[in-house]
């Protein structure tokens, strides 16, 4: 019989959570401390679930996939944004401070409305394929073939899970609420690469050619360093900057 070796780390974790319910007028933001025994290969996601199950069922945080795919469990972990499900407690000190992602609307405790922000960004930047004659498009017909290298390149950028970590890690986004963040600039680059999108550089410039777009980026590279999906954000933003500067 196969046995999975289980080692008890024997550490007691002290997890402090910034708690606040914006819909409750009596709620005051405060740090609440929880203590729990660390288990082998424990992620923050597991730790938070254990706290919610055994200590405080009112603790709010988001998760869906538990595997770094849905982008729901983004939060500030000891000052830096990251995904709870991808963060192993063994990589953290005994004392862990968790806070909701800044720049997004707070739902409660660690839960923020990234969806609302992402939708706003998507509508503003029109992050969908713009092409003529969609009404006549035969969805049953086989799509025109794309160069594998290009498809790969687009897929690489498409891996973004819109977790919001790049926005929370961005000094510009923290100062300027209208800044579209690396997630927005990455999506523009993705559609600019896509041969099905017929928009010109001048049209893309209309969307990101200002201080709230690519020219607002100060190249602090927090986005690149904190992206849980390791997207090549710095090179994509540099590419977009060159294209947009050449577009005028």
């Amino acid at each position, binding site marked *: 019989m196969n046995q999975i070796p289980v080692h008890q780390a024997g550490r007691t974790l002290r997890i402090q959570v910034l708690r606040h319910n914006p819909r409750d007028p009596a709620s005051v933001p405060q740090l609440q401390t929880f203590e729990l025994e660390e288990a082998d290969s424990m992620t923050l996601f597991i730790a938070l679930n254990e706290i919610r199950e055994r200590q405080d069922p009112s603790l709010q945080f988001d998760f869906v996939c538990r595997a770094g795919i849905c982008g729901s469990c983004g939060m*500030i972990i000891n*000052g*830096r944004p990251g995904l709870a499900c991808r963060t192993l407690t063994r990589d953290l000190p005994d004392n862990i401070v968790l806070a909701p992602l*800044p720049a997004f609307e707070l739902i409660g405790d660690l839960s923020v409305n990234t969806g609302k922000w992402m939708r706003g960004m998507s509508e503003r930047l029109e992050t969908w394929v713009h092409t003529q004659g969609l009404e006549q498009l035969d969805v049953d017909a086989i799509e025109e073939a794309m160069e594998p290298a290009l498809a790969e390149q687009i897929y*690489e950028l498409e891996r973004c899970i819109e977790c919001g970590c790049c926005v929370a*890690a961005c*000094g*510009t986004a*923290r*100062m*300027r609420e209208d800044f579209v963040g690396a997630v927005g600039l990455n999506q523009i680059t993705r559609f600019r690469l896509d041969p099905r999108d017929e928009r*010109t550089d*001048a*049209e893309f*410039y*209309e969307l990101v*050619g*200002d*201080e709230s*777009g690519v*020219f607002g980026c*100060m*190249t*602090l*590279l*927090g986005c690149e*360093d*904190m992206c849980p999906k390791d997207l*090549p954000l*710095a*090179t*994509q933003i*540099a*590419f977009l*900057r*060159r294209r*947009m*500067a050449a*577009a*005028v």
Partner: protein
Amino acid sequence: MATSLDKGPARADVLQSLTGLLLVLFIWGHMFFESSILLGKDAMYWVSKMFEGEPVFGKPYPLLVSGVGVIIFTLIAVHAILAMRKFPGSYRQYQQFNSHMSDMRHPDTTLWYVQVVTGFAMFFLASAHLVVVILQPDNIGPYASSDRIWSGHFWILYALLLVSVHLHAGIGAYRLAMKWAPIPAASSKVTRRRFKLAMWCIIAFFLCLGTASLVTYMKIGKQHAPHAGERYIPTHKQAIQESE
């Protein structure tokens, strides 16, 4: 479509980068010329006269130095005005950035703040240095510069300026590369590490070079203090004077 585009933001960003690049190249070149004092007084004398156009025009024209000073001053002014677009515009923004920076403990974010602080310091330090160069262009030479540095106490200004300008220029050059360079995504992490290493090596090199030459000027200035104000006569002219 193209006619209605607001070209301002693109031009401002390109111009900020371009003026920054020119200033970086200038200051790195400047360091090699000013450190000619390490090769001896005659070498520095020759460099100072070269910039006054003596090898070309037959006699020195210090106004040429003033002209370059004015150009650099203009570049700095344009660069500073454009860079200020990015500064925190209110106390709230400043607070947001400050807490973000201390929470994140992220080197590149902190380096930007270093650039803001050194940039602000240079508003005063570089301006003071340039005003002297522009108004007294003939006051550059092995003794003239050393006297200003030692007897005129300018070493305090230059020491502060040295640290500010090289941190600002080194970090700025790294950021410029990350901002515009077409780096393949596959090798971007390695390339960035190399750029970063190059940045620290360049900063360290110029700080050492600058310190060595500043100390040399201070030593010469201290020795020359009793005769402060007297100009250096190069060795070949000394020989001519002696033979006369």
